[in-house]
C-alpha cells in the first residue's frame, strides 16, 4: 500500500513537468521565412488571435486538417485572427509540391532547422497552439481527428471576444 501511494504521488508530481510550452504562459517569439522568402515574426501579430499549426506533408492527419484550417482562416481572417502554418520539414520541396495541389490562403512559414518546433516542444503531429491578443498561449492541441475543428472554433470565438 505504501509503495502504491508513493508511486502515485511521484506520478502526480512528475506530470506537470512534462509540458514544454504551457497554457497561460507567454508564447515564445520566433522569426521564420514565409513563402515569399521574407522573414515573418510572431510579434507582428500581437493584438490578433493567432493559431499556430505545426504540419508536414508526410503526415496524413496534417494533410487532412489543412482544408479545414483554411476555411477557419477564410471566415475569421479579417476579424482580428490569423492562422499560421508552420511547416516542419527540413526540405520544403515536398511541402510546396503538396501546396500546389492543395493550396491554402493562410501564411505558411518554414521551420527548416526545427528551431521553432523545439521551442514550442512539439510533441505530436500535427500540433496546434492558440495564442491570445496579448501573446499568451491559451490552448495546445496534439494530433487531429475529424471534429477537432469544433474545439478550435470555440476557443477562437472566446478569445476574439476578449
Amino acid at each position: 500500500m505504501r509503495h502504491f501511494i508513493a508511486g502515485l504521488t511521484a506520478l502526480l508530481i512528475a506530470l506537470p513537468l512534462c509540458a514544454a510550452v504551457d497554457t497561460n504562459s507567454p508564447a515564445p517569439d520566433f522569426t521564420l521565412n514565409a513563402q515569399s522568402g521574407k522573414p515573418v515574426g510572431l510579434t507582428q501579430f500581437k493584438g490578433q488571435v493567432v493559431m499556430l499549426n505545426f504540419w508536414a506533408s508526410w503526415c496524413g492527419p496534417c494533410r487532412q486538417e489543412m482544408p479545414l484550417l483554411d476555411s477557419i482562416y477564410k471566415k475569421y481572417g479579417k476579424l482580428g485572427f490569423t492562422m499560421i502554418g508552420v511547416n516542419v520539414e527540413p526540405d520544403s520541396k515536398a511541402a510546396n509540391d503538396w501546396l500546389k495541389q492543395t493550396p491554402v490562403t493562410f501564411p505558411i512559414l518554414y521551420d527548416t532547422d526545427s528551431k521553432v518546433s523545439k521551442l514550442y516542444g512539439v510533441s505530436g503531429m500535427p500540433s496546434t497552439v492558440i495564442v491570445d491578443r496579448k501573446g499568451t498561449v491559451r490552448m495546445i492541441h496534439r494530433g487531429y481527428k475529424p471534429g477537432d475543428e469544433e474545439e478550435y472554433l470555440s476557443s477562437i470565438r472566446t478569445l476574439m471576444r476578449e
Partner: protein
Amino acid sequence: MRLVRVLIALGLLYPLAGCAPIEPWVKPYEREHLADPIMSLNRDPISSDYIEHVFGTREGAHGATGSAGGGCGCN
C-alpha cells in the same frame, strides 16, 4: 506478491511514458523517413500474408513474422 509489486510499478511507469523522463530522441517532427511508405513494416499485407503461407506449407518453421509499429507516429 513480488510480481504484483513489479506489475504495479510498471503500471505506474506506463502513463509517464507519455511524457517520459526518457525524452524521445526522434521527435515527432523528425519522422519524415519513418512515415515513408517504403519504411512501412508491412507495405502490402495481402502479399506478405500469401508468401508466408507459401513458405509455411513447405517448411517446418512457423511464426514470429508479424509486426506493428513505426510509421509517422501521428495523433
